[in-house]
């Protein structure tokens, strides 16, 4: 049999070389950009529609993607194809996660993009996205140049790499099921809001 226990992540188990990994990053990026653009994420007014209820595409795409990848990884792990211990888990720094998130939220409602969607929009010629990317660069320089001022906040309240199911002390699958049910409830609210605040497509 060809089956190899826990073959993935491929890069960690040295099934592919670091250079192949970069080439695959490029291919994955093509898929990422294609799906974002095809879903309408190259339009700032469509993205901002999320916050006024007239277009909840962001909610639907974002949560469907998160639960698809989550369930996929659970199954891959169950089949013995993928060792989740070697998958990168974003570390949790409570203070910077909250403050950073709030600052990003301000940027989102003012600028109408996030970094990924701005790159997707510039690829089809949106000039407001070009301005947003210019702003992103300035904001990042502001952080890197002023780093000593922000370092304490950046590193405060570090919890390691806890996952939601560990925090709630329930099995991973049970949390996943709960999240899927929550996502379906939000989709239902989204569909309701779009009927209540109808707009033409941008």
């Amino acid at each position, binding site marked *: 049999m060809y089956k190899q226990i826990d073959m993935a992540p491929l890069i960690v188990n040295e099934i592919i070389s670091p250079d192949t990994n970069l080439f695959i990053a490029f291919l994955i990026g093509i898929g990422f950009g294609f799906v*974002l653009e*095809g879903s309408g994420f190259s339009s700032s007014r469509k993205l901002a529609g999320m916050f006024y209820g007239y277009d909840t595409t962001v909610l639907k795409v*974002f949560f469907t993607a998160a639960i*698809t990848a989550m369930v996929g990884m659970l199954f891959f792990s169950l089949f013995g194809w993928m060792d989740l211990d070697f998958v990168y888990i974003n570390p949790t720094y409570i203070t910077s996660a909250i403050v950073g998130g709030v600052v990003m939220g301000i940027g989102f*409602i003012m600028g109408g993009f996030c970094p990924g969607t701005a790159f997707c929009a510039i690829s*089809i010629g949106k000039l407001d996205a070009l301005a947003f990317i210019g702003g992103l660069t300035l904001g*990042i320089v*502001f952080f890197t140049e002023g780093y000593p001022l922000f370092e304490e906040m950046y590193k405060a309240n570090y919890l390691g790499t806890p996952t939601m199911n560990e925090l709630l002390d329930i099995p991973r699958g049970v949390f996943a099921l709960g999240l899927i049910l929550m996502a379906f409830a939000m989709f239902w609210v989204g569909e309701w809001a779009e009927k209540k605040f109808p707009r033409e497509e941008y």
Partner: protein
Amino acid sequence: MSEVKKTKYFNPYIGGVLLGLVLLAANFVSGRGLGASGAIKSAVVSTVNTVAPSHAENSAFYKNYNETHENPMKSWLVFQMMGVLVGGFLSGAFAKRLKFKVERSPKITSKRRIIFAILGGMFFGFGSQLGRGCTSGSALSGMAVLSVGGFLTMACIFGTAFALAYFFRKNWI
């Protein structure tokens, strides 16, 4: 009206499943999620290294970064971001959406739209560094691996944008 302007975008749930499969592929192959802001940071660090090498050696952030990264541009996210530009362009080309324009509400001028885009970008760029990733890297990819920080950042991004939506409504509707 809605008949004529029928959407030419993917069904959002199908788009979501496809995006989820892309994210799953990233984790399967590379053991990591998607991202965006990190690629700009790489470009910033690389520019500083080239333009002001002595500044890069003496300032905490760049020194740290260069000690842990061999070449900032030879990074996974930089290659992924180049792919995003190609993929977005291809999708726009197939759907005949390639066009230079400033997208804005008819109630505001293009100048106002550009100013708000720059300001919004500045907030987002700064926040993405503080929060260790943006909507893609921290919120979406973090949620898929059930990271507590990912969920927290996601809730703060969307919660804040909802809370402030009223004050910026003229820009969008």
